């Protein structure tokens, strides 16, 4: 029976570094552990995928809307001031969650299904969700939170 309970911050951070270095920044060192608790997400955008573990689990990314815009620009190799469409942000931020989810899934001992990614300004993980792990990172000095839940 697969669960995400054994997936720790070290593993999540390593996956995050690989994803950002290879596909978003195309260089290393721009994603770092967040220092202290001073970095908070004030205008959150959530992206998530659910995994068919028992019980079911969720990989959720949270960042500020403005940071999601800049993530999208970086992912698509756009200029810093280039306008970015909301649909592109939803697609790009969702795809980042999808890549994370697939790599987390690959750590599990058994095959589980992965849902298609979803993106919302409303948190998808309500009172019934149980937080298993939270990894707080800083991308170019701005907060990115990676959370694993059972749902």
């Amino acid at each position, binding site marked *: 029976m697969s669960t995400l309970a054994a997936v720790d911050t070290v593993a999540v951070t390593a996956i995050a570094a690989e994803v950002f270095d290879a*596909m978003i920044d195309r260089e290393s060192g721009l994603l770092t552990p967040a220092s202290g608790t001073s970095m908070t997400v004030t205008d959150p955008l959530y992206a998530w995928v659910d995994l068919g573990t028992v019980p079911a689990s969720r990989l959720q990314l949270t960042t500020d809307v403005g940071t999601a815009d800049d993530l999208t620009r970086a992912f698509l190799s756009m200029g810093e001031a280039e306008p970015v469409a909301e649909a592109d942000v939803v697609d790009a931020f969702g795809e980042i969650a999808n890549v994370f989810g697939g790599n987390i899934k690959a750590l599990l001992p058994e095959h589980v299904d992965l849902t298609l990614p979803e993106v919302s300004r409303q948190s998808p993980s309500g009172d019934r969700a149980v937080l298993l792990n939270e990894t707080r990172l800083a991308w170019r000095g701005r907060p990115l939170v990676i959370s694993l839940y059972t749902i």
Partner: protein
Amino acid sequence: MRALVIDDSRTMRRIVADMLGELGFDTSQAANGREALDMLAAGETFDLACVDWNMPVMDGLEFVAAVRARREWRDLTLIMVTTEGEQGQVVRALAAGAHEYVMKPFTPDALASKLGLLGLLPAEESI
């Protein structure tokens, strides 16, 4: 050479198409396996298809199996481009008829390396 990029994420379609364009491919895009099959059935021809696994409507594995079931598409080279990194899933993809496999995240060099192994790099990129 012509390549078809099949992914429900338009971000990934654009990124993979850009990578292939840099390598000298003319690219087209489809948002799922069904859309890609329709393009093939309409007579469009490609040397390579880069196929995501997890897509709505028709996923990558179904697409690979459908292509392999048709004799007239037997020359199409298929690369799975996906997050499905489990060994069992790799075996499933190759058994279904995929030629190679690239796991997200990947770099342009990683994709070029796979294409080189398949003899699919345009001549100037192979030198």
